């Protein structure tokens, strides 16, 4: 059973590798992110607005998880992702991030559910 699943997954990837699907079928997400420091040290409150890049319509009905990585140390600070809560107007989300140090972080916004996409936002966290 598991083998079949693996094989079909492999076949699926194989097909996709050689014949890419037409890009137009997918929604392309766009995000605006603003992070504010909280009272807790190294903890940030991030407000995220998700829209469809083509129509600028708010993206709703998706699950948004936020992770972070430091570009200057790839793979080193792979924080456990947090699930963002939908809040306020449609397409608005909020996530609390606990970072390991200040500096430049690449926020990974993973969108799953009705559509699947990833948006990376590079932000500087800290005093300057």
């Amino acid at each position, binding site marked *: 059973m598991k083998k079949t699943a693996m094989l079909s997954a492999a076949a699926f990837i194989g097909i996709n590798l050689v014949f890419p699907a037409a890009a137009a079928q997918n929604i392309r997400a766009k995000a605006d992110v603003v992070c504010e420091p909280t009272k807790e040290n*190294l903890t940030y409150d991030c407000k995220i607005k998700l829209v469809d890049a083509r129509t600028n319509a708010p993206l709703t009905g998706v699950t948004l998880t936020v992770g972070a990585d430091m570009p200057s140390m790839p793979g080193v600070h792979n924080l456990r992702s947090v699930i963002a809560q939908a809040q306020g107007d449609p397409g608005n989300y909020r996530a609390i991030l606990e970072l390991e140090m*200040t500096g430049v972080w690449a926020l990974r916004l993973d969108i799953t559910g009705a559509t699947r996409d990833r948006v990376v936002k590079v932000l500087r966290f800290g005093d*300057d």
Partner: protein
Amino acid sequence: MIDFVQTTVDGVMVGCSYGLLAIGFTLIFGVIRRLNLSYGPSIMVGAYLGTFLYVQFGAGPLLVAVAVVAGAAIAGIYVERLCFAPMKGGAGVASMVSSFAIWMQLEQAMILLLPRHTYAFPALATGAPWEFGPFTLRPDQLLMLILAIATGIIVNTIIYRTRFGTGLRLVTSNQIAAHLVGVNVRNVMLGAFALASAVGGFAGFLVLAIDQQVTPMFGMWATIKGLIAMMIGGLGSVPGAIAGGLVLGVIEAHAQGLVGPQARDLTAYLLLFLCLVLRPGGLFGKAPEADGAFSSRST
């Protein structure tokens, strides 16, 4: 023409501190014949201790300088004990990788001490720039130049006029022969790390005092600048280190003046690369001998 002279003078000022960084690097390389990647981070330990005293207690430049030098020397000793002293001869790559691991360790320890990205660092001297006709000279830069030269003279005296310096030169020249004439090689190595890190620490203090700020990137910066200046000047040579530092400083200054800040680093690496490819012994050194000490072969 006026710009050219001004840029060259500016380059010489910075080049002096590069030269000091390279002297420290080269002293360590001379005795252990391998690369201490933790050299810059040891200096960073000193720099952060100094900054801590400045930020927390408002310590003055003199006290900060002492803290930077002492902190760097202690960190250097720690690195020697952990990464180099226990390694049997030949484990070149292992001790180098070990020094890299300690780099990570020291860096994180300092980030825990001072977690913000940028901190202020006390200035060496304040005052308006002096104008000589079309040229300007910042008093703190001039002071840095004087202090750098003084440090160079002190280091020179230690190397050529003291018993420890003789031991250092003998170990650098030929480690086994140094053993045989009765030099305590282990002590000399430890001393070399302490001295080199202290010199590097002072160079770091001068640079930071000019910039008046410190970031966690400083450790890597010091390693890279020291390494480039050392390699350009010729591995294991103290006069070469000074010359390499000056060449690097002047060329960087001109590259920045002519093209821009990114060209500055690009030129530095290009110079290093060309130097290694065309003249591996450096501008002032001899061509490298078939030295097996630094090679994964003999691990």
